[in-house]
């Protein structure tokens, strides 16, 4: 089985609202696939349909080889899930939470203690095994949920915004665990996020979703290439001299486009072009600031939607 997830024309309506519109994706075995998009783009709705918690309106989907509409129980047995919000029982200990989930997933009673020790070890919670979950910090709860998601050895894990609301340090730790599950344990991972850097750092391939539709799909590098090779130079001017600057840029073989109150140039070897620009502008246009960066997924999102994801 090569495709762990395959959807064709997946659609979800809530009344008049189309939350997910014609989503067709293929997630291959062993890859980390990401859904990147702003809040309300339809990421969670898509995940909830794939984990069989929400009926689909139209289209089809298969997860781990099973049809989401026909074999929900088989799908739930073959996947691990990290929900967007906490889903632990606060009155049980760390260990009891895991044991409960192991039994619900029909693990052999003899296998559970070892599996619990192993997953706790992976996420570094061994010393909190007998602590009540209500006494754990937010980051520890998230780590425990990661531990729980692969306790029963699923081939595929869904993570709905795994690092939302966590501090940067915990975020880094969670990324480490996600890489470990993928690289060392060989698990396929489907995750959603609205953090560009998270999608960039973790995903082998990703789809950018907006208003329920996929607007671009590919590896992070492919997506960045879609908006032109090379670097991006953002320039802000002191006065209303956009046209004059554009003319200068044109002479140097670059096209300036206005972007969020600044001017943006796409070019190769940006670090070498900045001195040329400075020299050409000297005495003609007063430049207040210049920023050089490589294209990010944020730029990709802006390229396709015409607006920033943080709006």
């Amino acid at each position, binding site marked *: 089985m090569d495709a762990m997830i395959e959807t064709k024309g997946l659609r979800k309506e809530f009344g008049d609202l189309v939350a997910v519109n014609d989503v067709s994706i293929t997630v291959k075995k062993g890859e980390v696939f990401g859904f990147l998009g702003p809040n309300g783009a339809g990421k969670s709705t898509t995940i909830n349909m794939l984990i069989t918690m*929400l009926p689909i309106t139209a289209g089809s989907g298969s997860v781990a080889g099973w049809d989401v509409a026909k074999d929900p129980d088989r799908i739930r047995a073959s996947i691990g899930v990290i*929900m967007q919000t906490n*889903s632990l029982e606060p009155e049980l200990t760390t260990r009891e939470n895991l044991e409960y989930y192991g039994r619900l997933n029909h693990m052999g009673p003899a296998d559970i203690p070892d599996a619990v020790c192993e997953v706790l070890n992976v996420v570094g919670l061994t010393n909190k095994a007998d602590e009540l979950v209500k006494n754990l910090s937010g980051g520890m709860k998230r780590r425990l949920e990661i531990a729980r998601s692969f306790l029963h050895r699923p081939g595929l894990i869904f993570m709905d915004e795994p690092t939302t609301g966590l501090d940067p340090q915990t975020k880094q730790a969670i990324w480490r665990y996600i890489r470990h599950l993928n690289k060392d344990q060989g698990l396929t991972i489907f995750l959603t996020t609205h953090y560009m850097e998270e999608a960039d750092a973790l995903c082998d391939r990703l789809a950018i979703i907006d208003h329920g539709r996929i607007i671009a799909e590919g590896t992070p590098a492919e997506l960045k290439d879609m908006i032109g090779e090379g670097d991006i130079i953002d320039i802000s001017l002191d006065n209303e001299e956009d046209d004059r600057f554009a003319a200068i840029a044109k002479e140097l073989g670059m096209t300036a486009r206005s972007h969020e109150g600044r001017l943006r140039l796409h070019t190769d070897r940006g670090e070498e072009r900045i001195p040329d620009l400075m020299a050409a502008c000297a005495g003609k246009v007063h430049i207040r600031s210049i920023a050089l960066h490589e294209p990010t997924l944020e730029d990709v999102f802006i390229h396709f939607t015409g607006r920033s994801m943080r709006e």
Partner: protein
Amino acid sequence: MSIADDLGDVYTIWHKEMVVWLRNPIIGIARSAIFGIIFLLVFARAIGGDVSNLPVAVVRLGASAAGDAFIADVFEGPTLQMATDTSYNEALSLFRAQKVKAVVVVTADFPRGVRLLVDGTSPTVRSAIAGRVKQALLARNDAALQEEVLYGYGLDYVDFLVPTAIMMVVAFTGIFAGGIGLLQDREKGSLAATLLAPVRMESILVGKLLSGVTQAVTGGTIALLVAIFIGTGLRTGLAEILMLILVMTLLGFAIIGASIAIASSVSELQVFLLVFQLFLMPLWILSGGIYPVESQPAYLRWLVPFNPLHYAIDAMRAVMARGVILESIAVDIAYLAFFSSLMVAFATRRFKRQV
């Protein structure tokens, strides 16, 4: 900080709470209105009225004109109702099965030999019957009444309330373990993990039902132990306790099934509590738990045969006053079994795999 600042803070907090309160005016208004209606129209009418239409059997061991006139006098007025005029053995078996509350026996040499066999399970009912019979007899000279309390001898109002206490504990524990617990699980997210497991919905529901029933029955049993500890004239032998546990179990399934069904149909705790208040309060007041159902006016009394709480109270009271007499509780048990099955089916229908 001046006092004016503090008062300003008080106002800010008051104002915010009012805005929140007025955002859902229906709930606030409905709750107040429902409570007023239930308290004034149901509670006031169901409690403290005169008992009426108490079924009594008559046994005439010999005919006499004076005896017949006395019997006619006994059933004058609304208090007593002649259920049957029959043989002594037949009357006793009706009495045993709780079909009649008392048996009046007259002989050929009336006014001698008048006997009243009465049920002491409810002190109010017993004194109403005895009072009415004595009054009819007092009008005739030389008559002596032989009153025998066959079941529930020496029971008082505290004993009368013991089954009520057990019923209330079972009901409230059940609501907390069932519907409220489900809404809280949903709120804190722990329900999601269970729903995500490859487990049938029916298994989840039955697991929740059984855990709720276990808690409710444990609670009811503790209330029973309290009653035994503070001293009661009721029967609390092994057979009685086992039968009480059966009744608590059936009641538990009914309450928890209903509460899970309602909790699955509403999204907010406020609405859940409102719906439950709407049903549970009247059913409780009209159950006969606090005052005999025979005191209720006709426009409330028609509900009695449908009220599961009434059957639970009636069965527990009968068991504790009279011992385990199957024919006296068969109808109660049958109705409770029927009603709890209905509620469990209702819960099965409403309980969905939704986070």
